[in-house]
Every structure is written in C-alpha cells, then in structure tokens.
C-alpha cells in the first residue's frame, strides 16, 4: 500500500520532518512555560509577551511545525490501529473518516492560533 496520506510521501521525509518540528515545538513549549512560571500573569503582560514581533514569528513557526508534527503523529497512530486486523472489512472507510477528522482539527490549529496571535479582529 502506498502511504497516500503521509505528509512527505516517504517514510524518510516524515521521519526527518517529525524530528525537525519536534525541536521547534520543544523550544516553543519551554519558552512559553518558562514565561508563565517566571511572571505574574495578567492581560497586559500576556498581550505584551505574545504581541512582540519575535514572539509572533516564533508562535507562527510553532503553529506550522505543529501542523506537520501532529499530522504525522496522528497518521501513524491511525494507520497502525485502524486496520483490517482490528476493524474488519470496512477498515479503509473508518481510516478515511479518522484522517478527515484529524485533518480538520489540524486545519483549525493552523488558522485559529494564527488569528489569535496576529490579532485579526483586534
């Protein structure tokens, strides 16, 4: 079976993408977590933190990294478990539904936080 829904269309491409995006996501998670741990948090401080250009750029990078990382991860989980072995004759249909659901949530995670940090409506 060809991995039609894999992100990089090859296992090696997905392998490298998963690791490169992991480094970005780990750095971003530690950065944001560190800020929350260090600071007394209120609206003004939070808006100032996420509103700087470097932080907006870093958040955008993390959002893009997350889309790839989450897709590869959820794709791997889906193709490992939603198979004929466990789901029977209609496994391909169930896998398609699962993947469409995952793609929809990945798309939401791409658009929604981008709108939040770039402040479209503000």
């Amino acid at each position, binding site marked *: 079976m060809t991995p039609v829904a894999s992100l990089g269309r090859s296992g090696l491409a997905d392998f490298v993408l998963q690791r490169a995006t*992991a480094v970005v996501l780990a750095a971003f998670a530690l950065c944001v977590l560190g800020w929350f*741990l260090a600071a007394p948090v209120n609206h003004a401080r939070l*808006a100032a933190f996420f509103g700087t250009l470097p932080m907006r750029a870093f958040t955008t990078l993390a959002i893009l990294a997350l889309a790839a990382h989450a897709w590869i991860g959820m794709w791997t989980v889906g193709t490992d478990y939603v198979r004929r*072995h466990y789901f029977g004759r209609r496994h391909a249909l169930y896998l398609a539904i699962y993947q469409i659901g995952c793609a929809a949530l990945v798309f*939401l995670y791409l658009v929604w936080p981008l709108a939040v940090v770039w*402040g479209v409506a503000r």
Partner: protein
Amino acid sequence: MKAERPVDLPLPSLFAAMPATAVASILHRATGVVLFFGLFYLVYLLDLALADPAGFERAAAIATTPAGKAALWLILAALAYHLAAGAKHLLQDLHIGDSLVGGRIGAWLSILLGAAGAALAGVWLW
C-alpha cells in the same frame, strides 16, 4: 508494494508481559494524542485571555475551576512525558543510548522524568 513492509504483530496479546520500552513507546503515543486534543483547550484559553482584560478574567476563571485545573494538569503531564520521550528519541538518533540496555534505561528515565513533570505540574496548579 514495498518489500520492507512492517510486520503485523498481534498487539492485544502482547499487552500481558510488556517491557518498559514498550510502555514508554505507547505512553509517547498516548500523550501525543492527549496533546492533540488538549491543544483545543489551550488555544481557547489563549484566545480568550488575549482578547481583552475581561476575557483574561474569564479564561482565568475557567482555568481555576476543579475541572479546568484537572484538564490543565492532564495536558501539562502529557507534555512533560512527551517532551522527555521525544528528547530520548532525538538522542537515540545520535546513537546515544540506542543499545538494548541504553533503550531500557532511556525508557525508565523518560517515565521517571514524565512522572516528575506531572508531580511538579500538580504542585504548581494546586
């Protein structure tokens, strides 16, 4: 069709006697799935909190209810383990701790680090 297709293992019957490396691997997946869905809650809170001071207060009120805190804890605990297990993977890609014994030590270390992270997150939240 590719020659090097993965072998089809009967996973359910393997659950009985599971080595630490298998537990570490499944936890890495499970915590990844938790983070994938938990992110919805985090983006929702951030959206509210960044909107205006009143939104920030609403986000803080949601995040400090018992259920709101429990959800945050679950996400932070999952993040702690997922980070530790991910770091282990990256080190093993550099052939650090990729022997059988190294893999077992790494699995236990990531489980311990994840548990420590979960405990710290609990202390921070409560």
